[in-house]
């Protein structure tokens, strides 16, 4: 139980996927312009992460023992396809849900947060539950970072940031300061 909590906290704050592990930066830097969008992207990502956790667990237990060398390729193919399948399904079955979350799915499948989760979960030898908790934490962490970033960026829209810095440079520096602040969580619940 304890270490489940630690896995969650660690993925959420201490080793935040975006701010400490550098995963999923493309959407983090690209799509964090509007608060509302970022939040939905976060939710969608969390969802895909969970799917990923399940897929990778399945592969790890049933297929990869026979062919460890296929890990990477099977991960990416399986995850990508599964998500694409889900996307199609949602698009058909619940257009509103698709509008809200679905449109993000393609963007998410091809970013490293997903694959990263699969690989880290495997390296750390997480089982099913651990994997899920890890995915949840990572997703929540991603959403948190996204939302904070978006809030800040919407504010900087209103302020006269020097022209040269505007855009990605600024976003990176914001991200830097954010991750500096997140360093405060280092060692959380791990010491003494």
């Amino acid at each position, binding site marked *: 139980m304890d270490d489940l909590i630690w896995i969650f906290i660690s993925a959420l704050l201490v080793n935040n996927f975006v701010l400490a592990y550098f995963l999923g930066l493309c959407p983090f830097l690209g799509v964090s312009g509007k608060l509302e969008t970022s939040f939905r992207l976060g939710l969608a990502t969390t969802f895909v992460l969970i799917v990923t956790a399940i897929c990778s667990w399945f592969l790890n237990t049933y297929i990869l023992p026979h062919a460890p060398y296929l890990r990477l390729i099977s991960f990416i193919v399986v995850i990508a396809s599964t998500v694409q399948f889900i996307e199609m399904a949602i698009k058909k079955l619940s257009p509103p849900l698709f509008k809200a979350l679905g449109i993000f799915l393609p963007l998410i499948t091809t970013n490293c947060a997903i694959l990263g989760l699969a690989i880290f979960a495997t390296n750390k030898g997480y089982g099913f539950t651990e994997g899920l908790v890890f995915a949840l934490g990572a997703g929540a962490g991603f959403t948190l970072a996204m939302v904070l970033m978006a809030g800040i960026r919407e*504010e900087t829209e209103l302020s*006269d*940031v020097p022209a040269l810095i505007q855009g990605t440079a*600024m976003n990176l520096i914001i991200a830097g*300061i954010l991750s*500096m602040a997140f360093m*405060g969580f280092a060692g*959380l619940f*791990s*010491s003494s």
Partner: protein
Amino acid sequence: MTRKDPNLLIQSAPMLRQGMTTPQAMRDVWLSLLPVTLAGIWFFGIGALLVLASTMAGALLTEWAFTSKEKRRDAISDNSALLTGLLLGLTLPPGLPMWMAFIGGSAAIGIGKVIWGGLGNNIFNPALVGRAFLLGTFPIAMTTWASADTPFWSISPSVLAMPFITPVYDAVSAATPLGLMKFEQQETGLLPLFIGNTGGTIGETSGLLLILGGIFLLLRRDFDWRIPAGIFLAAGVFSLILFLVDGDKYPGPLFTLLSGGMLIGAIYMATDPVTSPLTPRGAWIFGLGVGFLIVLIRVFGGFPEGVMYAILLMNAATPLIDRYTQPRIFGRGESTS
């Protein structure tokens, strides 16, 4: 015919002004910090003065160098850069090499302020950005503490270390009350904490003077009292609960409130108007959040002290807080947004 009249002036109403100006607000903070500063120098010797000088120099030079020609005069004259430098200096260990302090100063203004578009546009508290940068960059130097009864005229060699060279620290390096608490489980008495003759950063030690300064600012209406109130409330209650759970493992509320960067942080840094919420309800949330995070990081985290990180984290959340705590408009049930 018209032009025989005196050429009249046209300005938008209202024609009257309260009289308080932004530079004055900054100057107030400045004045209220003077006693604290002097105390710091008194306790840690003129070495401390050198550190403060370096941070302020770093801050001012950077502000001057990176603001456009036309903005320059105001940017310097509005006193805020100097204030940032001073506050940064006050949160540094007295034995910190001057060159590090200088880098801290320019980092504070550089990535903490000008990049954002100068005064009023930054999301994060510049001084603390500077401190976080230093703490991350030179962790050892930033956690090595001179003892409070340094002879006045002695300057510890580390202060004068050559740029980019690892400093040599003088033998007597005291652990801070928090350090002791966290790593040796021993609690410092409240009186020293109140007077300030303990290890720690230049400006954080003397509780008494900090509180006086806070009262001064409160009377001058220079900050939003809700923020410190919220911090003390949250930190006090949270630590009290822990204390009741396990008295000899966790420090009591009074120790929590008086030790480390708590006071200076709550009174001078969380209250930075620019980086804290505008709205009253927002201020409460902000304060409570900071207080909670401080205790969380201090007790369960890897660092002995969390004030800086707590404030920076809440700074990050400030735009969101502001957005969702819009005041209830007169004659409207709900609030906007």
